[in-house]
């Protein structure tokens, strides 16, 4: 019989190892089923991480409404919304794989650190098996990185920077929303038709990842038309009064102002540009024009009548099925469902969040598992229809959705408070598709899927 000596050093070592093991975040501990937060009971928890405070709180609130609606439909409530029109008829209102869907929410505050903290909390404390949401590319990229490390799927909400599925793409991250390159590719021919090929553009650009990405894309597209870029001025994200940046525009020799701004920045810079008379001005013998590459309904509401006639692009518009027909089926089902519940039409942010939730649920059903790697495989090169954007591909190479892009312009005489933009055209997906190794998207790699165990 061997006598084991218990030493003080040995006890300390063992305690330290045990303590370290217990202190590890939940998601770093191996699960029985081999992946993070594998649902064990009869429910599954999704985490919706949206801006609930801060300048994008209204957009976040609309995203949250869409998530709640999607969960209601997945659990068999309501009229089923786009589940009825989705080309894959795997979702039957019995939850996901028979498990009732529950959800937790986090507040990103539109700050990367706060968004990561709330996503981490939802994964570690609440056991969320998927994270979705967001209204900023900086936040989306930060949370996508966290989800990759944690071994959960990230179905991004509104994020438009090329980098999200470009240099910062991740194997666990998937984007339904369009991107800056697609906006520019769709807008280019429309701008040529509206304003010709002999134009001089002055850019004001928000000084962060999305702004740089948007500016690079639209400059490239307009220069391909023959436009000259006179100047690109980076403006601080916290800027509120853009008069100092707007005032020199007319003297620069430019005859088009491109506002690579979003949210409050865009509302203020456009308002200031209109105050300085740019919409009525003449330059180089032509009418001066303003372009806002990325539109949102909430921005249009904030800008009021200043937005009238100004072209831009959207991922989706609630009127598209009525105006452009059956190709965009699913739109009316979603608008009816959302409108009856909340009393107003959904924004494009709400639409993309709703679509992402259904796409995730469908992928789980097809994969037969909540394992993120199985879900990723089910989403890669997945072709679908009936979610309001027409035929769509979730490309395996970068986890970016490819679909038609909606080119819009501010409506001159809105009939009501929801009728703020008019659809100019839906640019076919072929025109906005690019190779995975396109220079604007190069520099990163998806890496391999992380199941977390």
């Amino acid at each position, binding site marked *: 019989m061997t006598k084991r000596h218990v030493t003080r050093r040995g006890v300390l070592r063992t305690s330290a190892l045990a303590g370290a093991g217990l202190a590890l975040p939940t998601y770093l501990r191996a699960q029985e089923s081999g992946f993070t937060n594998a649902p064990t009971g009869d429910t599954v928890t999704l985490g919706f991480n949206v801006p609930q405070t801060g300048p994008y*709180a209204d957009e976040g609130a609309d995203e949250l409404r869409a998530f709640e609606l999607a969960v209601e439909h997945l659990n068999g409530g309501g009229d089923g919304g786009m589940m009825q029109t989705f080309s894959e008829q795997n979702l039957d209102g019995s939850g996901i794989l028979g498990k009732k869907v529950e959800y937790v929410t986090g507040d990103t505050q539109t700050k990367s650190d706060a968004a990561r903290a709330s996503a981490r909390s939802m994964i570690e404390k609440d056991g969320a098996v998927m994270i979705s949401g967001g209204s900023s590319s900086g936040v989306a990229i930060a949370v996508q990185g966290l989800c990759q490390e944690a071994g959960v799927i990230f179905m991004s909400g509104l994020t438009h920077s090329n980098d999200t599925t470009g240099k910062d793409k991740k194997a666990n991250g998937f984007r339904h929303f369009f991107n800056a390159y697609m906006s520019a590719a769709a807008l280019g021919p429309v701008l040529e038709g509206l304003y010709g090929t002999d134009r001089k553009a002055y850019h004001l650009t928000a000084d962060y990842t999305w702004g740089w990405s948007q500016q690079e894309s639209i400059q490239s597209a307009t220069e391909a038309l023959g436009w000259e870029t006179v100047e690109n001025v980076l403006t601080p994200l916290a800027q509120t*009064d853009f008069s*100092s940046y707007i005032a020199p525009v007319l*003297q*620069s020799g430019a005859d088009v102002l491109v506002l690579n701004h979003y949210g409050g920045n865009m509302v203020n810079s456009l*308002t200031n540009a209109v105050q*300085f008379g740019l919409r009525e001005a003449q330059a180089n013998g032509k009418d001066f024009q303003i372009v806002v590459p990325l539109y949102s309904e909430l921005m249009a509401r*904030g800008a009021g009548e200043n937005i009238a006639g100004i072209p831009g692009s959207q991922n989706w518009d609630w009127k598209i099925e009525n105006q452009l027909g059956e190709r965009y089926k699913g739109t009316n089902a979603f608008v009816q469902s959302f409108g009856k519940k909340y009393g107003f039409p959904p924004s494009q942010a709400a639409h993309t969040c709703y679509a992402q939730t259904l796409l995730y649920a469908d992928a789980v059903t097809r994969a037969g598992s909540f394992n993120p790697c199985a879900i990723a495989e089910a989403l890669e090169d997945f072709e679908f229809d009936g979610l309001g954007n027409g035929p769509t591909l979730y490309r395996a190479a970068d986890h970016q959705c490819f679909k038609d892009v909606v080119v819009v312009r501010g409506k001159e005489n809105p009939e009501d408070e929801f009728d703020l933009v008019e659809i100019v055209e839906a640019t076919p997906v072929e025109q906005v598709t690019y190779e995975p190794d396109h220079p604007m998207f190069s520099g990163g790699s998806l890496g391999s899927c992380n199941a977390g165990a």
Partner: protein
Amino acid sequence: MDALILQTLNGLDKGSAYALIALGLTLIFGTLGVVNFAHGALFMIGAFCAVTLQRILSASYVTIDDSRTDFLGNPMEVETPYVHAWFGESVGAGIIEWSVPLAILFSIPVMLLIGFVMERGLIKHFYKRPHADQILVTFGLAIVLQEIVKYFYGANPIPTPAPDALTGSFDFGVLLGFDPNVIIYPYWRLVYFAFAALVIGAVFSFLQFTTFGMVVRAGMADRETVGLLGINIDKRFTIMFGIAAAVAGLAGVMYAPINSPNYHMGMDFLVLSFVVVVVGGMGSLPGAVLAGFLLGILESFASMTQVINLIPGINQIIIYVVAIVVLLVRPRGLMGRKGVMEE
């Protein structure tokens, strides 16, 4: 040259807002000795006075128009403002259109009341507490106020346009002998500058030429002695707090057409306004006004493309660079009195 003139105008315009907010901050600091971090929130509430009056004047009754449908396919609900029904469509539309100038009258009693309630209800309990406590409580109050506004009005900016007669731009260049359209400047921003000059002039006149103002100035110089003379200086200082709130509120009302009001606009101005007060000299009213315009102009010049190309990023730090230089060279600020905030 034309660019310099344009940026000078811009600077005067920006400086108007800085000067008005800094003037109120200095009034409160000079009279009550309180560092009021809720002052930006008062500016924001002023802007929302304009939004509120616009909504009051636009209050509507609903009729159903069966010939049109809403987004759900139901008969369209058409809203008609009461003022259209009462005064006819053109007069009614005119009243709504002039809601921002009318909000000046609306905001003064509202802001005075808010100022009195703030001072009597909260801030007076912090007179004898350290400045750090005052900063914490007023900063907390600012967050509470902005969250209340967000709850009722949402986070999205709310368009609050100027009257049609005051939109558009004035061609300054032609006056100065330049070609047309070289130096154009929005009418409303010129109105803002004139309005700011008027308010600043009124505050200085009030303090300089009225008995009330004389007592307040005496109290600012030596509160104890004025009290020993049997004058209730506290009551007068409370009124000054209300006046400072009204000045911030008026600055906010008139700012509403320049940038659509949102709940965090006060915070955007607060830090800059404190820098203005420090550069001007704590407790110095002329210093606050001078520094407001000076920093507004410097900020505008720093935003010029030529300057940014020369020193990238200067537009984002110029105000703070100036503040550092002034504090190093003249710690009491441009027009500050020796000893203020130095104990």
